[in-house]
């Protein structure tokens, strides 16, 4: 095991800010060692043969060895087993990375050329600075207002593209106080390399204080903003929000997280992406028993921020 720790220590990975980071580094340490052994075998073998069987006279006789089935089986089978083992191990960790914890603290992160815009549930907005409490699950809901960006925190070993036109997400649970770099890793134009942010891990008290301050600074909670918009854009004329009663369109009451049946029989989970699609392309999927073509599209009438607010509003109708 000493070898293993040495390999990890020499791996130049940034400090481990999360449990996942440790797991990733374990796997990486293992890969470093196996790779090193493989290289020693191949390169070492090559150098040894080159030295041992160096040409001695212009007409050396050489052995006639065209193949060896047993050897060939061995050196196909052993790599296969190793590769599949590594794959399975990787799958295991990746599954944890991709399974969003329930009840995580959610924060919206919007990528744009060339900054990260962060918005907390209470409507507090910042740029290039994410503050999170230590030892709590945090889920970042990523989107983009122009081109693809990618949210990357090396110390947490997490990365996820922020794609315009849809939400993607990632989660982490920070275990170390301090400041960590956020980079954009999807090339996004002129100042791509300047799109750098800070992720600050603080105690729960400091986090509450931070949000309160932000709150005082101004602004309504995201859901409150959504409520206003809901009225302004006249959504309420077709959708009820306080009861399951149906108007022209389906009720949105307690809709989030439910499965909706479409007119073609398909079932769709009402998650953020579904809500987004229903607002921007209402006729792509129509809920069973409702007429097609009634709801107008809101494409172009809502900016990302307003969409976030509306969706948040719908999410909070519990």
């Amino acid at each position, binding site marked *: 095991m000493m070898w293993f720790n040495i390999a990890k220590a020499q791996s130049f990975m940034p400090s481990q800010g999360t449990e996942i980071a440790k797991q990733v580094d374990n796997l990486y340490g293992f890969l470093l060692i196996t790779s090193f052994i493989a290289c020693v075998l191949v390169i070492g073998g090559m150098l040894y043969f080159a030295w041992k069987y160096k040409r001695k006279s212009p007409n050396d006789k050489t052995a006639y060895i065209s193949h060896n089935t047993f050897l*060939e089986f061995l050196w196909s089978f052993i790599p296969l087993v190793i590769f599949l083992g590594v794959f399975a191990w990787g799958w295991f960790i990746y599954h944890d990375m991709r399974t969003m914890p329930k009840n995580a603290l959610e924060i919206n992160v919007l990528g744009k050329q060339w900054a990260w815009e962060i918005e907390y549930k209470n409507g507090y907005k910042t740029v290039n600075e994410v503050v999170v409490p230590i030892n709590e699950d945090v889920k970042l809901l990523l989107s983009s207002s122009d081109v693809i960006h990618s949210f990357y925190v090396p110390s947490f070993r997490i990365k996820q593209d922020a794609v315009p036109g849809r939400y993607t997400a990632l989660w982490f649970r920070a275990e170390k106080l301090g400041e960590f770099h956020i980079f954009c890793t999807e090339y996004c134009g002129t100042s791509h390399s300047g799109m750098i942010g800070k992720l600050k891990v603080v105690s729960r008290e400091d986090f509450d204080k931070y949000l309160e301050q932000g709150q005082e600074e101004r602004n309504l909670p995201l859901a409150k903003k959504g409520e206003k918009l809901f009225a302004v854009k006249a959504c309420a004329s077709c959708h009820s929000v306080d009861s399951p009663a149906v108007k022209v369109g389906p009720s949105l009451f307690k809709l989030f997280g439910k499965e909706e049946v479409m007119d073609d029989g398909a079932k769709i989970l009402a998650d953020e992406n579904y809500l987004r699609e229903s607002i921007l392309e209402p006729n792509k999927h129509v809920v069973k028993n409702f007429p097609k073509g009634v709801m107008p599209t809101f494409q172009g009438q809502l900016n990302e921020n307003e969409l976030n607010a509306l969706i948040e509003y719908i999410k909070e109708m519990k």
Partner: protein
Amino acid sequence: MAATHAHGDNYINHEKGLWSWLTTVDHKRIGLMYMITVMFFFLVGGIMALLLRLELFAPNAAANVGGVLKNGDVYNQVLTYHGAIMVFMVIVPGIPAILGNFFLPLHIGAKDVAFPKINLASWYCFMAGAALAILTFFFKKIDTGWTFYTPYSIKTGTATVMMVLGAFIMGMSSVLTGLNFIVTVHKLRAPGMTMHRMPLFVWALYSTAILQLLATPVLGITLLLLAAEKLFGVGIFDPALGGDPVLFQHFFWFYSHPAVYIMIIPAMGVVSELITTFSRKVIFGYTAIAYSSLGIAAVSFFVWGHHMFVSGQSETAGILFSFITMLVGVPTAIKMFNWVATMYKGSISFDSPMLFALGFLFLFAIGGVTGIMLATLPIDVHFHDTYFVVAHFHYVMVGGTLMALMGGFYYWFPKMFGKMFNENVARLSFVFIFIGFNVTFFPQFILGAMGMPRRYFDYIPAYEQLNKISTVGSWLILTGFLLGLWAIVQGLRKGEKAPMNPWNSKTLEWQTPSPPPHDNFNVEPIVTAGPYEYR
């Protein structure tokens, strides 16, 4: 076969004048024309690489050379051209179009390729596409990166359409070459040359040709869709129009992943030739090498999603793509072991082509194991789009393909020009390139592990030391290439006359005079045994 032709008539002096070259349908001359043009593009792409490295010598905050490229826009343009030129104009056409064109017919004992005129047309196609692509530089530079990811490529105000058309036309050239090679292999083999007596280089070209024929049209269609999107706003990729930007990535990598194998399989073919010849020993596992090329080619169509683990594709897709990618690792590993085993009990000489082949094995081993790392899901999440990836693909494309291209070039130089090059200068050139290469690119693995993203015009101070080392390495590489150029130019000017078979190789191209006559062979060869019967 001691047939030396009267007056030394050969393909070079068979006809005279520039016009006879520009209208030639001789595969050997076309191979040379590719060689000259590809070398030119390599020079252009190389100068750009040096500029990029110079820019990265120090962070911009530092008051020294950092800042040669003025600002992010210029850096991004130079980066785009460096990548696009190296990929579309150097590495993809490189081995098949230069060495393949020249030696495939000689290898199988044919007089020419199956469609000589199409062969010439594909060179013109290549030149037209390249000209279109390079012209954008002089009039409306493009800054999308060679991958043209949407929606950036749609939004940016530069010459995407023209560039993409250039790439499309070069793609046509690639398809034509592939088609030509497939038919040539099936129809023009000399009497006695069964498929299983073909040299492994031919097998590699054959597998590559299938990939070119099947994969390149997908890129063509994708690029046309992109052009349509940009010109007419049809709404396929642009989310603002209801399109899906990730769809572009799927399309793009569906070609470009197999394209990675279009780049490396021919190199593997060359290396197989070099290792047997300079070990003077029959290749170990001929069938395994031949069929693993085909196997890799087939599987490579199903792994494109490993470029998109963090793009927002589903978890299940990520897992499947990771799994299939692991499977492609196996035939690659088999080849490595076969080459090393070929050296066992051989009689190994260290002529410069062999040095390049050994360099290939060394660098490709590192490129290969880091490839497995990138195929491992959670590790790629950390490494994706960082310098680790930059290091990995340079180890594969430069350390692999380019090493093989140069090794092959020195190996066949006597046959192509009938002259010997200066062996000592060539070896020195190898030493500089090999050391310089590792100094340039090994630190980039570490930079990637530390988290430095790629396509960065500037970086935080923590990354400075390693970037400095890397830049110094690029100067060593430059020195190596200049020495290599000198070895070649001197060889052409006053090299000794080359014998018919200076390396005592067994394959057919060495059984005809150097340089070969216009019709390749004075006497039609008849094949009675496998290609590597060193006994």
